[in-house]
């Protein structure tokens, strides 16, 4: 039981971090970022390049992932999303663009990093063992703690910094924020960069444990969509709740339903559909997002 909860918390911390980036972008610009999973993969590959190939310390790789993805996010917003949002008649038009960017990042990753599974050496060795009731490798604990630290840092930043306040105002009411003198363009760009950066950080963290490969992008995006559906799109607390709930369900499902074959995700999906029938806006979302 302790093992299941610990696994759930560890998974949930990473999931929440992925969902945070997606929900931030969604709340600021009303864009469903299909390329989020690909950004996560790109972050993993950047860390891999710095740590495994250039032999730099892990923390440098992680920072490099964050910086590279933030730059990518800012450029994507400034040169692609902004003009399309301005000209598009229906706001869903950005979906084609997002999907195009997802394909584009896939192609770039394939050409630059190849299609092989990549990983970096363990950053800390050893296994935490509490009487065999709870067994967890130290590197997983470290990654879990780092992920939670990143979430806390993000919340504090959004809550207390000037930039964070501007972005929250933007998410609440774009026009009102603009009238109060918030530079909408600038904070949209910062928000997108921040969202992409979070995806990159998760990629950098997870490359030490699960490794990274090209095919992980799409499934990651789907999981992130599920999390923000559980929690409610565009709400930060919802993304965190959704991440931890999905992590917990996956952890419980994998141990309880293992006897019936590989149906964990089928059960999760089915219960999600039932849940949404009763509460369409998720746990904490605003109705009709």
């Amino acid at each position, binding site marked *: 039981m302790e093992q299941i909860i610990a696994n759930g918390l560890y998974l949930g911390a990473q999931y929440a971090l992925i969902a945070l980036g997606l929900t931030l972008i969604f709340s600021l610009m009303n864009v469903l970022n299909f390329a989020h999973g690909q950004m996560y993969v790109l972050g993993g590959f950047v860390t891999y390049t710095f740590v495994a190939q250039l032999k730099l310390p892990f923390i440098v790789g992680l920072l490099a992932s964050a910086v590279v993805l933030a730059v990518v996010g800012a450029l994507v917003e400034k040169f692609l999303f902004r003009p399309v949002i301005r000209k598009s008649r229906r706001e869903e*038009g950005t979906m084609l663009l997002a999907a195009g960017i997802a*394909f584009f990042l896939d192609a770039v990753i394939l050409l630059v990093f190849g299609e092989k599974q990549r990983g970096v050496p363990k950053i800390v060795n050893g296994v935490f063992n509490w009487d065999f009731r709870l067994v967890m490798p130290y590197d997983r604990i470290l990654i879990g703690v780092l992920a939670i630290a990143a979430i806390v840092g993000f919340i504090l930043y959004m809550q207390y910094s000037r930039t964070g306040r501007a972005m929250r105002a933007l998410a609440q009411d774009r026009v009102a924020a603009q009238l109060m003198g918030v530079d909408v363009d600038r904070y949209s760009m910062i928000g997108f960069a921040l969202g992409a950066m979070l995806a990159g950080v998760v990629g950098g963290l997870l490359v030490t444990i699960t490794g990274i490969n090209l095919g992980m992008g799409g499934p990651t995006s*789907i999981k992130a969509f599920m999390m923000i559906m559980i929690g409610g799109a565009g709400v930060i607390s919802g993304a965190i709740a959704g991440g931890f709930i999905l992590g917990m369900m996956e952890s419980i499902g994998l141990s309880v339903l293992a006897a019936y074959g590989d149906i964990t995700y089928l059960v999760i999906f089915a219960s999600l*559909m039932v849940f949404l029938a009763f509460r369409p806006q998720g746990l904490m979302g605003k109705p009709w997002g």
Partner: protein
Amino acid sequence: MNAQRLLGIAGFLLAVFVLVPWGIAASGRWDFYYTLTSVALLSIGAAGVWLTFYIGRINIGQGAYALMGGYVSAVLITKAGFSFWATLPLAGLFCAVISVLIGLPILRLRGVYFAMVTLVLTEVTRLTALALPVTNGAKGITSIPLPSELSVFGLTIIPDFATMQNPKLAFYLLAATLMVLGYAALWRIVNSRLGHLCRSLQQNEELASSIGVNTAYLRVLAYAISSFFGGISGAVFVAISQSIYPSSFVVTDSINFMLYCFLGGLGYVFGPMLGTLLLYFGWDLLSVAKQYQLLIYSSAMIALMLAVPNGILSLLDRKGGQK
């Protein structure tokens, strides 16, 4: 005006049924038949997605219904001994019934919520196909016989595909016929009372319901028609490839169906057809670029979106084009 429209339709039919087979026979590129058959079938599915766009919902779940339709057809042919021609409408109807059951709860969702739940639906269908015994799990159903003879009162309408010299051409004609019928039906729906009611849903659902439009019934109806199209296109795909696996239609396919609609333009009935042709045929032609295929394809897609964010057919708007 009417003469012009008739001329346009005649020209289109001529191009699809005469010029394309003639051109392929002249150039000897027999592989184009498969590509164009796929384009025709995918555009049927995309037509369904377009109809859900028409009531103001973003549908990224058409892959689910294509997969369902494919499995219904495959199971009926191999396990129950049905003829392919009988399974074709049954596959569509099965999808329509399922979509009513699924649609009743989820069509209450709007915007990205509906989009995401339909995306998840595609994944659910794939996992269900993996888990159910009747679908044979990951091994799929293979060596499905080609469509047999279709006859009414002893009169052969369509000969047995297995005895044909050129089944590729036959499949192309079948897919093109279905596509023409599908788009004719779609055009008829859009320009009927039902279509006008659907347009009112797209613009303002509350207002529509306040003046007495039965919105719940309409959106389920539109979604069921959409899924019917998806099921048909999946069933014919299975007949062509003679096999189906849980991975035959995945999330990428669902997203592609949506992209075809966007690229063609959401304001025009024939938008999805054009979008499918450009994206699928373009992808196929780009295969000469080897490893740069995806890079060029995605760059072209992004460039197109920057140039014409409202779809290619939106270019007609400025000239005051007709629907």
